[in-house]
């Protein structure tokens, strides 16, 4: 399909879905937000961004003063890309609008992993003025340092519409760390983000997302991932700070033989927050496998932790582990693990547990001389500790720091 025709079709589908309520999560009234924000100035050097913004971005893992350990950087404030750059060859980072102009084949990657008419949020993105990041590794290229991206909400009552496309060409390796944060701790905001991932044959993508919103933000990410033969998609998600309402349920299709998808999520929330976070993995390729590990802690907010694995091919293997900890008197955790097998000879399993910290464990540690507070902190730290295979040491270290920061939020 040519570009113009594809665009018309997408717009038509979006218009038809403009009022389509999402199947999960509280319905957000889009009319309460405006998408017409001021344009922010482009910066050739990201370190020139205001110190306050850089501080918030750093909290979400985005380093702007020293980018020597980054393969590329993309920064978007509200709906304006304010910086994009790459260091080294083999990787492309640019606003997605620019990629659309540059590459005719972009239509193949546009609303392909995510449906434009999934709900009113995807429709709103298509129907609005919007941008997002385009990150691509060239065939066989393996990036050592991660590409970093930041989506930053600065204006009050703004809807941030984002559409990202990530392509790892055959045999390439790409690490992405993406941080989302807000300028203010009080301003209301809505983040709508579509991310489409295409992991080609033998490629590997690790995607580490750190969310650091404020208690008035509503967030509706919509992600889709297509993993080809021998490809690997590894997602790490950390929600560290309060958020009013967040719902996401990314869909991964392991279409290639021996493809792999792994999801690790760490959700920490307090009173006033409502989270509905899951992941859906469809194992269509022979020998494909997946593992979903989620850890949820509430000190007063509500968390629905979902996981869905569907096996449609021989020799597939999937495991889902969902554990929730309720600290304090209030708060709710609802674990929804689901498995669906469509043929014999597949191996799908899950384990889920929700509860408070076992007194027996606290006393065990106290018998070694730890105070009750120290024992509780040690158990919480252990609970949040997730062994992540396949993450480069640098990212593993950064992830560890982010988890430690979320521990502090809890304690």
């Amino acid at each position, binding site marked *: 399909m040519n570009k113009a025709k594809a665009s018309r079709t997408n717009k038509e589908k979006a218009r038809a879905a403009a009022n389509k309520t999402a199947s999960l999560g509280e319905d957000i009234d889009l009319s309460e937000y405006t998408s017409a924000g001021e344009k922010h100035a482009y910066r050739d050097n990201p370190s020139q961004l205001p110190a306050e913004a850089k501080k918030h971005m750093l909290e979400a893992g985005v380093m702007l003063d020293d980018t020597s350990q980054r393969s590329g950087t993309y920064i978007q404030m509200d709906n304006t890309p304010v910086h994009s750059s790459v260091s080294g060859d083999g990787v492309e980072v640019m606003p997605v609008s620019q990629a659309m102009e540059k590459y005719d084949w972009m239509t193949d990657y546009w609303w392909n992993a995510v449906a434009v008419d999934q709900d009113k949020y995807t429709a709103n993105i298509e129907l609005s003025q919007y941008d997002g990041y385009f990150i691509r590794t060239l065939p066989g290229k393996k990036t050592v340092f991660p590409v970093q991206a930041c989506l930053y909400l600065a204006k009050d009552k703004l809807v941030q519409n984002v559409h990202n496309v990530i392509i790892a060409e055959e045999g390439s390796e790409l690490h992405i760390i993406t941080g989302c944060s807000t300028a203010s701790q009080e301003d209301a905001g809505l983040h709508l983000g579509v991310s489409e991932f295409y992991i080609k044959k033998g490629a590997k993508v690790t995607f580490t997302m750190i969310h650091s919103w404020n208690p008035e933000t509503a967030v509706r990410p919509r992600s889709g991932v297509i993993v080809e033969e021998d490809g690997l998609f590894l997602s790490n998600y950390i929600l560290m700070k309060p958020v009013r309402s967040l719902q996401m349920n990314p869909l991964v299709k392991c279409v290639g033989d021996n493809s792999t998808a792994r999801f690790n999520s760490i959700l920490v929330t307090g009173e006033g927050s409502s989270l509905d976070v899951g992941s859906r993995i469809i194992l269509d390729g022979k020998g494909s496998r997946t593992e979903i590990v989620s850890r949820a802690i509430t000190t007063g907010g509500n968390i629905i932790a979902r996981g869905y694995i569907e096996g449609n091919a021989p020799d597939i293997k999937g495991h889902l582990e969902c554990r929730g900890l309720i600290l304090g008197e209030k708060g709710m955790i609802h674990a929804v693990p689901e498995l669906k097998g469509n043929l014999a000879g597949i191996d799908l399993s899950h384990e889920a547990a929700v509860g408070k910290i076992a007194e027996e464990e606290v006393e065990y540690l*106290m018998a*070694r*001389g730890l*105070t*009750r507070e120290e024992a509780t902190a040690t*158990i919480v730290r252990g*609970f949040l*500790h997730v062994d992540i295979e396949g993450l480069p040491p640098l990212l593993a270290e950064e992830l560890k720091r982010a988890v430690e920061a979320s521990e502090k939020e809890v304690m």
Partner: protein
Amino acid sequence: MLKIKDLSVSVEGKEIIHDVNMTIKNGETHVLFGPNGAGKSTLLMAIMGFPKYRVTKGSISFKGKDITGLTVDERARMGMGMSFQRPPVVRGVKTRDMVAACLKESGDGDTINVLANRADLGEFLERDINYGFSGGEIKRSELMQLLAQKPELTLLDEPESGVDLVNIALIGELMNELLEKNCPIQYRKCMGLIITHTGHILDYVNARTGYVMCDGTIGCVGDPHEMLATIREKGYDECINCYLGRLPINE
């Protein structure tokens, strides 16, 4: 010194231990025999101070201080340590973290590695504590933690149960290190109180005082080797019948 005086202990409102008296002097290791359900573990848990084991009468003093009202961690920091018979799995907390917690500031990563090698648990340091451990591995892990903690009073609940004959020698060695067996008696400070069913452990530790406990009371006090011979020959019933009433309950 540990001094237990007229101690009664209740669990969930039911009195399990009645009027127990016991004194362990510095450098001494005592052994507690008794049939299942006699209250041996309850006594140990009460000495360690677990809140579920409520002291209803009497007192416990340690190093000259009445500790009856102290919490578990306060007692641990005063120098009490306990090996658990069935310790809980704590997911995400690595064995290394536990040993480090026991060491406090008195050692580093190398110290932990040395201790793990001593206990033949080098490969377990990065595993979640007690997760998938066999009976013998749990015992060795408990003793490794205690060696890091260096308690002055060690409470051991059936350290040999579930351990095969090869491992029992290693368990014995670790216990001896804890209880300073190789240190001349006059310089020995560490005290021990060991629950044993089989008595195998007597081959390894230097224990001179034994007790037989039954129905929550201490029926007799004596030489543990002689007691063990009697128990093996005649069983606990006979042992209790024989000694009860003949020996003073109070030391």
